[in-house]
């Protein structure tokens, strides 16, 4: 009987207000690629940080090669043989590739030795490294390669990959998979964290499924079909889609060959993005995170403007070069992805946060002397709290004291109260409890029914399929053709999410 390389027994970790990992037990055998599957917020990252040593569990045991480990730091875990390739790379931008790798080596190793070994490692696994390049100037794929080499040089027995393909272009993914397969073939174990079932099917041998911080299943990949994994992960079957009939009106938002000029290395370039949304319609934007959704919404909301004024049109009027205030006056409302720090200011009260998105038409909130009408603001806010079922003690509570779901309902309510012509929503239910999620989705559908044009971006494809009329997929800053939500299939979706727009089997759809 082969002993497991790593065993977790009843590991628990609590944070203020939530239990990230609840009695998680897991076994990883040597030479195996073991997946840890779960949706965003299921507790995967925390679990990996515990194994890696940067976070200490509140309860439970970690057993490595048969011996229990207590309070080990990342350095100690590394010495034991556990390495991690982070999702958000642990690299120093101002230092060179060699510098970064050298810092992870033990003190006695000379720089020249690091250089030789790094080159060797790169060649062994087919990774190309420019040792003298400053990391800040590298592309995402190149940075990941540095991360991997850095990790492998410590000769780990167990390597953890945390959502490695989240930011990789399609052609780099196969290269990564080959590297991982070589590692397993050498007898090392790999922990592969992901929520992308297709990849897991192709790469992994076994899997642990997490949901809400708990283990719900431990399966062998070969014997478990994809849809069953999906059910385990989400706790519900992939829904059958019933489209509610809606009357669709005139075009309210039109994006015509929108192209952007990135202001930093982290920013993705949008090229030739085109789509349109009509009154009464919900357009969904699907895509792997980091495909350009953030940049797109910056350009749609007016936080970033374009050179061409007709790149974006609202109600037929060109607004491409108009800023946030002008677009808001034209009837635009926006619920951003980040509640804390973008859509709302945690330290300010709900009254103040309500006022945040009223500017552009703010005159009605200030009296003749230029002072805020605190009473009428409060009345409106209380009405909003009531109508959108936000649990808050008073309108003077700070936004930061609200739970995720309640704050999201508040922000959605705030935007909907303006009776907008066009609504932009990014990740409407990320980190939100089930009840609030259902409520928010219903609000969006009702809003569309009343004649608004809604654009929803989400990483949750099921959500999009439930509420959207049409879909557009973003990949690498470009958009696919628009399709009816009811006529798309998962294979098509997968291809488009990987950026292969030209190979589609569904013809472009005419809107009736």
């Amino acid at each position, binding site marked *: 009987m082969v002993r497991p390389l790593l065993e977790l027994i009843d590991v628990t970790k609590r944070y*203020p*207000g939530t239990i990230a990992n609840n009695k998680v037990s897991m076994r990883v055998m040597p030479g195996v690629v073991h997946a840890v599957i779960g949706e965003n917020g299921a507790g995967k990252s925390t679990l990996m940080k515990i194994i890696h040593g940067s976070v*200490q569990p509140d309860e439970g045991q970690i057993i490595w090669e048969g011996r229990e480990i207590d309070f080990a730091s990342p350095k100690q875990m590394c010495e034991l043989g556990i390495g991690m390739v982070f999702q958000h790379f642990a690299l120093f931008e101002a230092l060179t590739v060699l510098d970064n790798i050298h810092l992870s080596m033990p003190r006695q190793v000379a720089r020249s030795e690091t250089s030789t070994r790094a080159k060797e490692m790169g060649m062994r696994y087919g990774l190309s490294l420019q040792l003298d390049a400053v990391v800040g100037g590298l592309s995402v794929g190149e940075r990941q390669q540095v991360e991997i080499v850095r990790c492998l040089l410590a000769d780990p027995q167990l390597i953890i990959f945390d959502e490695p393909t989240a930011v990789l272009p399609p052609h780099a993914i196969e290269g990564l998979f080959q590297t991982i397969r070589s590692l397993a073939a050498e007898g090392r174990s790999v922990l592969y964290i992901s929520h992308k079932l297709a990849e897991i099917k192709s790469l992994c041998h076994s899997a642990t499924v997490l949901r809400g911080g708990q283990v719900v299943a431990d399966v062998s990949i070969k014997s478990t079909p994809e849809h069953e994994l999906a059910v385990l992960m989400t706790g519900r079957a992939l829904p059958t889609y019933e489209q509610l009939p809606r009357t669709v009106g005139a075009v309210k938002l039109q994006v015509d060959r929108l192209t952007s000029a990135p202001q930093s290395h982290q920013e993705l370039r949008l090229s030739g993005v085109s789509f349109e949304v009509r009154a009464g319609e919900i357009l969904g934007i699907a895509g792997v995170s980091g495909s350009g959704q953030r940049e797109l919404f910056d350009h749609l*909301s*007016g*936080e970033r403007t374009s050179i061409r004024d007709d790149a974006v049109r609202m109600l037929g009027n060109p607004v491409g070069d108009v*800023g*946030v*205030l002008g677009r*808001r006056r034209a009837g635009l409302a*926006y619920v*951003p992805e*980040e509640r804390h*720090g*973008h*859509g*709302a*200011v945690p*330290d*300010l009260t709900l009254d*103040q946060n309500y*006022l*945040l*998105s009223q*500017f*552009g038409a*703010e005159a009605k909130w*200030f009296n003749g002397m*230029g*002072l*805020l009408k*605190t009473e009428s603001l409060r009345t409106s806010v209380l009405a909003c709290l009531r109508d959108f079922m936000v649990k808050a003690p008073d309108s003077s509570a*700070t936004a*930061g*004291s609200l739970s995720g779901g309640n704050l999201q309902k508040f922000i959605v309510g705030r935007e909907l109260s303006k009776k907008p012509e066009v609504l932009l929503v990014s990740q409407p239910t990320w980190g939100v409890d089930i009840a609030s999620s259902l409520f928010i989705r219903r609000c969006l559908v009702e809003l569309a029914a009343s004649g608004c044009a809604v654009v929803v971006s989400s990483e949750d494809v099921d959500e999009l399929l439930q509420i959207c009329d049409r879909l557009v997929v973003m990949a690498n800053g470009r958009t696919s053709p628009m399709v009816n939500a009811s006529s798309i299939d998962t294979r098509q979706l997968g291809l488009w999410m990987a950026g292969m727009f030209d190979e589609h089997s569904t013809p472009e759809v005419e809107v009736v």
Partner: protein
Amino acid sequence: MSTRSAFLAFSLEPRLQPSKWASRASPLFAMVVTAVIAGAMFALLGASPFKGIQALLLSPIASASGMAEVLLKASPLCLTAIGLSVAFKANVNNIGAEGQVILGGIGATAVAIHAPETMSAWSAMTLALLAGAAAGGLWASLPAWLRTRFGVNETLTTLLLVYVAVQLLSWLTTGPWRDPQGLNFPETTLFNANLVLPKLSDLGWSLWSGTRLNISVIFALASAVFVHVFMARSPMGFRLVVSGLAPRASAYAGFSATTGIWAALTISGAFSGFAGAVEVCGTLGQLQAGWVPGYGFTAIVAAYLGRLSSGLILLSALLLALIDIGSTNVQMALGLPSAVSALLQGVLLLSILGLDLLVRYRIRRTT
């Protein structure tokens, strides 16, 4: 979990909501800590700590004229600190208020020495004070321009301009504006009566007869009220608060970062300039080369001590003014150096910063 620090075996856990209790109590605690340190210092120097604290804090306000002096010192300090609170709330580091104060004095003097004697006191005074505010605002607009146009950090530029202001003052009072009948002293002519701030005793308030207390007190009070209302209830005030707390949310709201920076610097500069004008037209009555306001820096302490809130800043200004005057008493009564004032200000600021920790974090013992 330990903080990995060699000294401390406790950990800091962030609170979900800032602690109201701690944020009200910390200024008081800071004062207690400072008083203890002051007492210790006096004891170290061979003087009785109680006598020292009495000389420092109590004897200055034992008489009406003493209180008048404290109020006179506190007024320009309060005006400057209130203006700075606007900048700090917007996360703009204007630490060159001292220079803006000096420019304010210069601006007021420019009007004062050129205004005809026949001009009404009301209009001459108003013009001089406005000129002072404008000069201070202009001096602060230079760092604003450098920051918005070139991205230069305003922390350094505002500071460096203080030294330029000092040299400008020196040149004006020894050169073009020197009093020709002044026996070569580096100072301007004394201002005409229509340009000196009226004393409260002259306006009929007999309590202050025999003292120098003038209407600068009223200006200070008015400024506290004005800024409080401005920050809490005006559109620009809201913009400044948001931009200081969350730049991304500020962009989301549609606020221009550039406008915010200009507003924060020119407003705080104008208040500082106004304070300088008030002092020059008030107790000084002329511009002198040796004029070192000092409260341009003390105002920073007052602003933080008052947790950037107008009412508390008012009280802090009074306290700091008291300490300043008290330290001269300490020097005379106990033979101790008056530098104790700067030292205590620093200790106060440090204490309030350190105690702020309790507002945002809970302290837990680690095993």
